[in-house]
């Protein structure tokens, strides 16, 4: 596992990916800090961080797009499959290498509150808490990006889809607010989701009986629940969508709240998508 981790780091730092990622993140953080803290005179570094989080929408796909897509494209994945290393270790090594790349600018950011401290009193707890949340948000997003990269052979597709998905999670809180809270709307929304899951199953297993079956079961469950316990559906869809809003958890930190559930949430998302990536790699052998 350490061999793959080292190789990944070597390829990130000897190539352009890591320098661009680090430079871009630091540049944007620098701009926001200069505007908010140095010029605006605001004593909280977390304000700059909350402003700069959108940079992940571009930076994370740049980092993750080639992680697995390129292996598949260059057929080097055959080496990874043939080496006496488990798939879980391969995926974890790749993931940790990307997290290490993210740790570099995050580490540099830890110096910023110290710099600001020279010019006034700043809240270290909220600043460092926000940096931690910012880092964990990045970790979760990297896991999502890596999973998307494992689905395709093309870096371009991986990048475009990753940007799309991350943008969706970025805007999700706003979108969720626009959906009516009525039970009917939620019911309809859940039916649509059931059909979408059926489509995904069809694409994955290419067996119409299975996908139709899954869709029918999901639709039945949703309908039965709707007729038995209608009030369960009040505001259920906006709540579900809000749960997918990855970026918004960061804002409780930047508002000065140390939100433990957000930390658990980010770690869970990261673990889930690392697990899904392992499954996606394993599935490729069966196709």
């Amino acid at each position, binding site marked *: 596992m350490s061999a793959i981790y080292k190789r990944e780091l070597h390829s990130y730092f000897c190539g352009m990916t890591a320098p661009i990622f680090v430079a871009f993140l630091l540049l944007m953080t620098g701009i926001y800090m200069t505007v908010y803290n140095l010029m605006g005179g605001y004593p909280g570094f977390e304000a700059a961080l909350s*402003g700069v989080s*959108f940079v992940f929408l571009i930076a994370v796909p740049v980092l993750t797009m080639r992680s697995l897509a390129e292996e598949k494209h260059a*057929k*080097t994945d055959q080496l990874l499959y043939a080496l006496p*290393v488990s798939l879980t270790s391969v995926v974890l090594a790749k993931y940790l290498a990307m997290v290490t790349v993210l740790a570099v600018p995050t580490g540099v950011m830890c110096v910023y509150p110290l710099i600001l401290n020279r010019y006034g009193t700043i809240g270290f707890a909220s600043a460092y808490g926000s940096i931690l949340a910012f880092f964990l948000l990045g970790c979760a997003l990297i896991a999502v990006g890596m999973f998307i990269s494992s689905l*395709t052979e093309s870096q371009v597709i991986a*990048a475009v889809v990753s940007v799309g998905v991350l943008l969706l999670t970025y805007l999700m809180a706003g979108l969720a607010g626009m959906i009516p809270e009525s039970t009917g709307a939620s019911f309809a929304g859940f039916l649509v989701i059931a059909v979408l899951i059926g489509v995904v199953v069809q694409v994955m297993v290419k067996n119409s009986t299975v996908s139709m079956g899954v869709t029918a079961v999901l639709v039945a469950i949703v309908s039965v629940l709707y007729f038995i316990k209608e009030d369960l559906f009040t505001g259920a869809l906006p709540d579900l969508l809000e749960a997918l809003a990855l970026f918004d958890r960061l*804002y409780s930190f930047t508002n000065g709240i140390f939100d433990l559930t957000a930390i658990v949430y980010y770690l869970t998302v990261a673990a889930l998508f690392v697990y899904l990536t392992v499954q996606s790699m394993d599935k490729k*052998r069966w*196709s």
Partner: protein
Amino acid sequence: MIEVKHLVKRYGDFEAVRDVSFTVEKGRIYGFLGPNGAGKSTTMNIITGCLAATEGEVTINGYDIYEDPVEAKSCIGYLPELPPLYTDMSPEEYLYFVGRAKGLKGKALDDGVDRVIAKTSLTPMRSRLIKNLSKGYRQRVGIAQAILGDPEIIILDEPTVGLDPLQIIEIRDLIRELGKDHTVILSSHILTEISAVCDYVIIIAAGKIVASDTIENLTKLNEGKSYIDMDVRGSEDAVKAAAGTLEGVGGIEVQAGENSTHLRLEVPGKEDIRDHVFFTFAERRLPIIAMQYEEVTLEKVFLALTESQKRNRAEEAETPEDTRIRAEDIFGQIGERQAAEQETSAPETPAEETAPAEKPAAEAGNDNDDYKPLFGGN
């Protein structure tokens, strides 16, 4: 060492590998021979764990490739069809990476890398980037990677593709040397390559094993077997009568032509009976206007086997019986094949060895090209 039982690999409705079973014993060089698309690479990918079989099982030194993949894979060094190289590294860096991933450390790693670099004559290229190396050198890096760490079993998928004649000889010598203390499986669609280095041949065609035997046995059966094709000016009956008096002839086929009669003699003995044939026909005043002497070679065995298998592919889908052919049966098919001289072009069966993967879209270009700058924030 390796036991392969009833391996089946299906891609949708297409069966790339159909019920393949064989056993590989220690210390031998095995040749996997078959035309393009026969299922060689698929079988090798399954043995090494790169692909999962639809049915069947593979055990390596007692470890199942699915149940205990790490233990099973640590016994194998594998060179896939396309060498899996990271082109942004130098051969040395790459081999150090593979060595570490195989669990080598410290001095064993240094020595191992130095040894495989020397063995594959990569020394002058060891610190150049792989992307700047020629195909032949890349292939060598791939072989070096496979033999690094002295795995008990070395599996090479078409190891000499893309090499120049001198390199091919070098690599063959290397494989022979490896065969002394390793078990080597190598695949090829070139018969001479297999017969040059292997002890044991497994001939595979259209996803099935059609023959598996030692080179000696296959060649022994060929020895002394030959055919004489003649055109004789004379009636069919006269020719048949003359041929009937010949001694040491196994089989006779007569076919009337326009101006002459075509005669085909099968000669099982070692003796060259052409003089005898000539004088016999001369005495009967039957002029021989053409005579051709043909010896059965391993190549013909191979072609006869693989072509008939390809032809039968569609029909056999319905009859699941074992179609493995004994060596004795081979010659009947060679006879058929040679009789049908005009049939030189093999019927092409499109047998894809890899999964129909999604088409890679345009090569990824500059990292940032696809993005529009986004502005936002809270």
